[in-house]
């Protein structure tokens, strides 16, 4: 088996994901970071953003995450998110609602960093929405 790390994404309501992954990109408070196997022990709080999970055989999976923290230990990566939704489960309406919330956050941001970050969330969500509409279109045809 290729060397991987054990990834667990846990939200208060359920265990969202528990699997082996090659690399995971996480939105830390001080910026996005990627964890691979053998990462030094590390703990950080999270911002609203996207977790990208890259596995061996599977296509990269995207999770929307809001608040929480990540714990990188020798055993693997544990993400305790206040809210975490796999992008695949996210409906179009849900997505639109999230875009609106993100845009409000952007409007309310008053420091340049906050603004940059909120902007990132908005454009990330918009990208996802576009991708989803393509996918849906493909299904329809």
């Amino acid at each position: 088996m290729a060397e991987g790390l054990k990834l667990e994404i846990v939200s208060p309501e359920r265990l969202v994901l528990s699997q082996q992954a090659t690399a995971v990109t996480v939105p830390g408070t001080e910026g996005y970071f990627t964890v691979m196997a053998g990462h030094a022990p590390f703990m950080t709080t999270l911002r609203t953003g996207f977790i990208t999970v890259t596995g061996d055989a599977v296509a990269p999976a995207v999770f929307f995450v809001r608040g929480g923290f990540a714990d990188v230990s020798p055993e693997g990566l544990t993400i305790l998110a206040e809210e975490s939704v796999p992008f695949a489960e996210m409906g179009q309406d849900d997505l639109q609602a999230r875009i609106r919330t993100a845009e409000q956050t952007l409007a309310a941001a008053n420091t340049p960093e906050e603004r940059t970050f909120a902007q990132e969330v908005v454009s990330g969500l918009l990208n996802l929405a576009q991708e989803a509409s393509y996918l849906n279109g493909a299904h329809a045809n």
Partner: protein
Amino acid sequence: MPSLKDLKNRIDSVKSTQKITKAMQMVAAAKLRRAQDAAEAARPYAERMGRVLASLGAVYEGQTNAPPLLAGTGRDQTHLLIVATGERGLAGGFNSSIARLARDHANRLLSEGKTVKILTVGRKGHDILRRQFPDHIIDTVSFREVKQVGFAQANQIAQNVLALFAAGEFDVATLFYAKFGSVVSQVPTATQIIPARLETPAGAEGQLAAPGVIYEYEPNEEAIVEDLLPRNISVQIFRALLENGASFYGAQMSAMDNATRNAGEMINALQLSYNRQRQAQITKELIEIISGAEAL
């Protein structure tokens, strides 16, 4: 002596009551399974949260600059009791046993000259405690409209509690709920949530503080602890609500099971006296006919 017709009516009414309790028992059983699943699903988060906090809390051991949520305000004067009960009755002693625990606690604090404030979650607890502590109840949260309690609701309560704490409205907060043991045993429990009591579960030590492992923290330990403590309150409340939900349906299930059985016994007894009386009437009519015939 009730007439035959009266007895028949009573048997019918007990029978329909039995049908209702039977249906409620089955509904409670189905809901219990769902509530148990929800409680089960929430466990990993709470466990990991507790583990991380326990290891981080050690940082503050013996220090004076610990955040108030961890160390308390230094006073012990005003107590907030968060009493979580069910929204409905018909669950045996479920609501009253939680309320009783809270009441005893409140009475003890009052006799010690402390100030008591009560926040009730769930309508039933409010109904019970309102009689004895009308002036102490500061707020009531009701989930009557909510089908399945989610983290959002727990978070809302936690935000209220934290706002009160930040405003210096209380020093110690205790949460009352029923811990789910099994379908037949629900244990009313009191847990102190502010200041936080960090338990160190066995084995947690080895997991996080493995020798030679030096953690890096971003931004830093203090910031993480300050971020985690309020979250921990939400998680504790959420957990209590879920436990409560499972306990409620467990209690309701066994209460309704008892009620169904009692109704069955009652029907048997009524049926017996109905049959006796009918037989007595037949015998009486026969005697009348026979003695009438003899008189001729």
